[in-house]
């Protein structure tokens, strides 16, 4: 190619560009690229074959089949070099296919085949095996070596619910070892032995199941043969089609490639070109999909009559619902009806649900699970910056110098982002973790501040004070970009740092060092999770994190910012779409007349102007008799909202509870009407991940018989209740949304492409990777100071209930576990356990595995003890994935003072060895 054939360049430009030559022809080179990269940019993939190379791994140089001949001048003497790790230099002449290199490649493959079973036709990867492909490319005819020692008698490892290995197929390319190291950072795999004897081992030579494998499947995806694979035989080529979609689990928003045949899902892989996950995903995304065809899937609408659920037709259920809702609306007014939409559903479905509640029912009683997770984030960041969303992108982790993770355990809850943070820390970048628990990242951190749960405000004030004290304030940023600093500073200077350290039970010096490390870093990025928000001072804490970013100038550029790790796959999107009682689609204030007018014009009906109930207020109102009907989509409030007894009481107080679900959850059991929805694999739309990336969800299979996409159910009900809404279709719905949500103005289904777009999406379609570059959304960033205030939970109950339990999540299960417990994940992680410090355990005579009775002022639960120094004395922790435990029986109904997010993270309890010896049986209804 030259300037005359490459229209990218004019002759002048072409002449100036640095070039190198591929088989005699010049091409423009990029700085720092390898020969292989250069050749791949211009030539077909097979021209230079590879085996040990993989898109998401560093150059390794083991297979040598990528060798090429290189001369430093035309027709000059050549040298054979491995192209994957040899840097290209200007004027290099690369010869990709000389007789010598062709022979070399063939001879290497011949050697490989001396230790490989030649059973291609019966091998699971037949047709999709890189060794097979390369062998064909280099033209192997036969193996000339006499039969020698080999590794063909290896046993298969079928120990694990997902991962499998057959090392007789292994070619020692180390791709699995490197994937486990460079992608997941788990170090489960290595070679053992030396030279010809070297073989892959898991852990200290154990099986997958016995190893510390986190089942992310990166090794299986990386393996060029079938040496490491999975039970779904992901690399087999039997699929009829593959569908690119977005994972339904967490807010990372992994792109998935779903292989299907005859409307059945065979396996899931992670596409390498995905910006959100770059070829990686976790066991939930990759393997936990079989729930979709689980026999317990709800497959018909049901109405509870005489205490029993009765299957009915869609027409019947719609008629029943329309009649009931209309009657309640007529009798008690629209505000007697409320909806909880689902962050597991698409933007389009969430948009429809809030539209149904607002425009069809006529109330702002719409809320979503953001209430119980990141509502303080949205509110706090709106107050300080003007936008309640992550300021930066996941890819920024690759550019940051310092990471501060507060109240988040991303390696479990956001595994791909967690792995990325881990990788960055493993590169020697500073990692600060503020968390009561010794999380995987805390163990790796340079500074782990293991504070007492509930004292975030105290610790962050200490950090802010130290930064001022040390003269590390970014004066320039503070002066030009912010307001309110002087008052803020005055307050901080009055802070009694020693008192704060005592309250938080932290080492003052450690906090000072962490503050200095954060402030001195050239680019510091913060990540926070529910350990920040689910507190009585949750919103304030979010604002302090924003203060930290502003005071150090860590806003508006690459590798910095405030980055909430959004919990559910589309919790960002649900709020964006107006699933909040105080803001409509696009975060517009529904109390403002101009906004009301705008919505009225758009929806063509009168709009309510009063702020509706937040979720906890819905329960209060139901108990008080003010709320008569609730429609809950994809949210198990009984299992996951705090103070279970109160939630159940509220639900039982209703005249009508509609639950739209995949499974008979704890909440569904209390429903009057059940609507069977469809899973993410069965419908289309968009999800917005934690970095504001709006991505296409595309149905891989049809909804199972008897179910409907949730959006269609809402549309049906809208029409049934007299509001004309066209049938659910992702593209047309997005069109409607783009007209009303300002930051979706340029969002078009067909233009979202494989990787989606990060909002704000401007009318011309340009998207936004980093927010607040030049100015904040609200103009100047605003500093707010807050005093630490002990939670009422501690002040009221701390004496009587001296332990603090904090709840969290496991890698293997998602939220209430309705989906993951119906996959093989349950074979890997079988139950919720109670983390308890060895000293506390000893004091109470508790040993590992004992059932412990955990009692709070609300109630008590029995949980199996796991004695660990992962929590400090006086602190307990557990998960809430299993209905056998129902840990929310003990959580309080104290909420964040601003956003009403429940304080899951600080619960006063007492513990003793349980009298019972067995747990509540599955299926037993809590009444």
């Amino acid at each position: 190619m030259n300037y005359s054939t490459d229209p990218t360049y004019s002759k002048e430009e072409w002449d100036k560009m640095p070039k190198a030559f591929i088989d005699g022809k010049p091409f423009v080179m990029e700085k720092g690229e390898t020969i292989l990269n250069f050749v791949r940019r211009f030539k077909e993939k097979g021209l230079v074959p590879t085996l040990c190379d993989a898109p998401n791994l560093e150059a390794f140089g083991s297979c040598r089949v990528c060798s090429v001949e290189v001369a430093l001048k035309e027709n000059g003497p050549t040298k054979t070099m491995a192209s994957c790790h040899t840097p290209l230099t200007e004027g290099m002449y690369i010869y990709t296919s000389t007789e010598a290199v062709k022979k070399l490649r063939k001879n290497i493959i011949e050697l490989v085949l001396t230790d490989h079973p030649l059973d291609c036709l019966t091998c699971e990867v037949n047709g999709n095996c890189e060794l097979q492909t390369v062998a064909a490319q280099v033209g192997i005819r036969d193996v000339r070596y006499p039969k020698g020692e080999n590794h063909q008698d290896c046993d298969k490892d079928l120990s694990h619910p997902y991962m499998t290995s057959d090392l007789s197929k292994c070619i020692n390319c180390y791709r699995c070892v490197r994937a486990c190291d460079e992608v997941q950072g788990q170090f489960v795999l290595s070679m053992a032995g030396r030279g010809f004897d070297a073989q892959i081992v898991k852990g200290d030579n154990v099986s997958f199941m016995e190893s510390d494998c986190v089942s992310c499947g990166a090794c299986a995806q990386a393996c060029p043969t079938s040496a490491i694979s999975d039970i779904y035989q992901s690399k087999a080529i039997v699929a009829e089609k593959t569908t690119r979609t977005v994972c339904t689990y967490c807010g990372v928003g992994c792109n998935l490639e779903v292989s299907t045949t005859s409307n059945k899902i065979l396996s899931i892989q992670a596409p390498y070109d995905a910006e959100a996950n770059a070829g990686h995903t976790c066991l939930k995304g990759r393997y936990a999909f079989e729930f979709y065809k689980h026999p317990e899937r709800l497959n018909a609408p049901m109405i509870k009559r005489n205490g029993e659920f009765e299957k009915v037709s869609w027409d019947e259920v719609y008629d029943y619902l329309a009649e009931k809702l209309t009657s309640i609306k007529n009798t008690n007014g629209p505000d007697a009806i409320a909806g909880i939409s689902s962050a597991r559903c698409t933007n389009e479905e969430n948009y429809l649900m809030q539209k149904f509640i607002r425009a069809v029912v006529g109330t702002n009683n719409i809320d979503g699970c953001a209430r119980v997770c990141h509502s303080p984030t949205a509110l706090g960041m709106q107050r300080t910056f003007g936008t309640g969303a992550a300021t930066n992108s996941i890819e920024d982790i690759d550019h940051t110098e310092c990471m501060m993770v507060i109240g988040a355990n991303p390696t479990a809850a956001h595994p791909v982002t967690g792995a990325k943070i881990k990788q960055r820390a493993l590169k020697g970048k500073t990692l600060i973790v503020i968390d009561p628990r010794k999380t995987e990242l805390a163990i790796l951190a340079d500074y782990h501040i293991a504070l007492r749960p509930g004292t975030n405000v105290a610790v962050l004030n200490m950090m802010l004070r130290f930064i001022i004290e040390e003269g590390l304030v970014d004066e320039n940023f503070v002066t030009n970009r912010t307001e309110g600093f002087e008052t803020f500073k005055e307050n901080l200077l009055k802070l009694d740092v020693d008192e704060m350290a005592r309250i938080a039970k932290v080492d003052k010096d450690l906090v000072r060092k962490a503050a200095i490390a954060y402030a001195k870093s050239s680019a510091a990025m913060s990540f926070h999770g529910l350990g920040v928000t689910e507190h009585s001072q949750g919103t304030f804490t979010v604002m302090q994190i924003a203060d930290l970013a502003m005071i150090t100038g860590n806003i508006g550029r690459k590798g910095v910012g405030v980055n909430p790790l959004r919990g559910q796959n589309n919790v960002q999107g649900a709020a964006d779409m107006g699933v909040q009682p105080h803001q409509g689609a696009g975060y517009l204030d529904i109390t403002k007349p101009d906004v009301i007018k705008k919505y009225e014009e758009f929806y063509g009906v009168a709009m309510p102007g009063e702020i509706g109930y937040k979720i906890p207020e819905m329960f209060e109102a139901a108990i008080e008799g003010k709320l008569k009907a609730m429609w809950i989509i994809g949210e198990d409030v009984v299992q996951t909202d705090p103070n279970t007894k109160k939630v159940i009481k509220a639900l039982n107080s209703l005249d009508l509870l509609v639950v739209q679900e995949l499974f008979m959850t704890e909440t569904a059991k209390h429903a009057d009407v059940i609507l069977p929805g469809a899973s993410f694999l069965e419908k289309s739309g968009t999800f917005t991940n934690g970095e504001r990336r709006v991505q296409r969800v595309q149905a891989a299979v049809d909804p199972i018989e008897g179910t409907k996409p949730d959006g269609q159910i809402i549309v049906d009900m809208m029409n049934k209740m007299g509001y004309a809404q066209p049938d659910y279709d992702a593209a047309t719905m997005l069109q409607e949304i783009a007209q009303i949500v300002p930051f979706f103005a340029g969002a078009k289904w067909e233009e979202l492409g494989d990787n989606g777009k990060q909002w704000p999406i401007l009318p011309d379609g340009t998207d936004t990777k980093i927010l607040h570059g030049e100015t904040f959304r609200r103009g100047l960033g605003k500093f707010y100071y807050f005093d630490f205030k002990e939670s009422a939970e501690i002040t009221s109950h701390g004496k009587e209930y001296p332990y603090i339990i904090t709840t969290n999540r496991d890698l293997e299960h998602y939220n209430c576990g309705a989906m993951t417990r119906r996959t093989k994940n349950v074979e890997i992680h079988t139950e919720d356990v109670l983390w308890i410090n060895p000293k506390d355990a000893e004091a109470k005579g508790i040993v590992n595995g004992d059932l412990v009775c955990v009692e709070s002022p609300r109630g008590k639960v029995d949980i199996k003890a796991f004695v660990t120094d992962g929590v400090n004395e006086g602190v307990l922790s557990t998960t809430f994935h299993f209905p056998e435990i129902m840990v929310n029986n003990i959580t309080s109904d104290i909420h964040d003072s601003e956003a009403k997010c429940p304080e899951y993270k600080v619960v006063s309890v007492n513990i003793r060895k349980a009298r019972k010896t067995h747990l509540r049986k599955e299926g037993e209804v809590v009444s």
Partner: protein
Amino acid sequence: MSKNLSNLSGRKGLQHNLYELLGNSAEANEGTPHPKDLKRLAEDFLMGRANTFGAASFYDFLKPENKGKKVYYCNGSSCMTAGTQKKVLEKLKTNFKEEEIGHMCCLGRCHENSSFHYDGKNYSGASINQIAEIKEQKTLLLDTYNVKSSGPQILTGNDLTLEEVKTSLNEILKKGREKVLEEIKSSGLRGRGGAGFPIGFKLESAKNTPSDSRFIVCNADEGDPGAYSDRYLMEFQPNKLLLGMLIAGFVVGAEWGVLYIRYEYPESLAIINKTIETLEKERLIGERILDSDFTYFFKTIKARGAYICGEETSLLSSIEGQRAEVRVRPPYPTQEGLFNKPTVVNNVETLACLPFVISKGGEAYKAIGRGKSTGTKLISLDGFFNNPGIYEVEMGTPLIEVINNLGGGLKEPIKAMHIGGPLGGLVPKEKWTDLTVDFESFSENGFLLGHASVVCIPMDFPLVKYVQHLFQFTSDESCGKCFPCRLGSKRGAEMFEKAQAGNYAIDEELLTDLLTTLETGSLCALGGGLPLPIKNALQYFRTEFEPYFSKKHLAV
């Protein structure tokens, strides 16, 4: 090669060294780390259990098979061609159980052979006759060999006194880093480990790579069977070596000098450790040396048996407690070396030359030698010579002078000398007069000066057997990372084994393909260098091989 593991290992610093801890556990547990220790160390270093397990399994004197080994005979090339292994092994068998006997590849006692290792000490020559006494700790027998120079004495003669070390340190401190570097660059000193890369470039590159810390690493893993010149330097010239490392550290701004000393040289390790102690006592190393702002510490690492660690990137991985697998370059160690920090790795002999360069000047050093091969070179002569020992000769000295004048001629007729280690060339008698001792002369004649060890191959030693030995050695020592070396060395060894057993005729075209594949395809000099002596053998001693070749190719 895992940068993540390098980082995790580096977090603990050199004073809490994973490789050393693995070794300590092996010593406390009959030769292999206890599984509990492997688990504990993995946790301690935040690594996976696979990493410590995989690392331990890599090294001869850490791997599980080493458990219970009490005595080791030398199975190196020199003891093999000298024919002493059989007797040593027989004698050992009368005193030890078969499972207690292991082997070590070259104890550096090639001047008298019959070498074996017992309880952390080496023995050779007639010592085997006293094995019973040795076993009862009744006797310790030291070896002696000739040391002589035919010209300038840079590396032989007396070692530096502490006073001389101090003077030299004062001088470099006065001169400053830049001038010292210029001096070294002007000397033209090239690496003595085999590759001949100018040390000045390495020092400059490491010095100029931005970093918060840097390292000097001395490659004292003299693994070439037949070579013992580094052993000589460590045991008899330790001050020169350590001062050389100080000078290098001063130039690049390193705070640590690490000596990676092979397990097979226990005496060397002991002497170096003792010398470091003395220098510490004299405050010639440590914090703020001679009240300057130059701070420098030493760390010795006891290697655990892997020839590949002579390759610098493997050596670095080994210090980190990883499997010693060869890394790709770039990044070069001077950019990202030990614990991912800029590191200069040089051979013992190279570093030991630096004090001379500083005291006499780079130009004075450059005036010695010939052309691009400046200075002197140590040569190790084995027991076939009348005067076996270590000889320092000026670069450019005719090889025949070394053989006849210094070595005093040969005890018995030989057919070839294998010079420069297992990857060096096999020099037939007729080429001896063509060669001078320098990098250029050897490479122009199709050989390799390498580390300048000499192993003689007597007339009655079949070269087919020798070639099989070379393939086998490479197969045993291959790190296993690159395909050509891991598989090719094994298949080569099998071909020659089967051919000698009489049930296979070597396909010569296949052998040629194999050698080309190894030579052009291997990642490092182990696989890449193996074909040289084999091709020499095939070229100069073809008739010895023909009976083993398949008939169809003989016509070609």
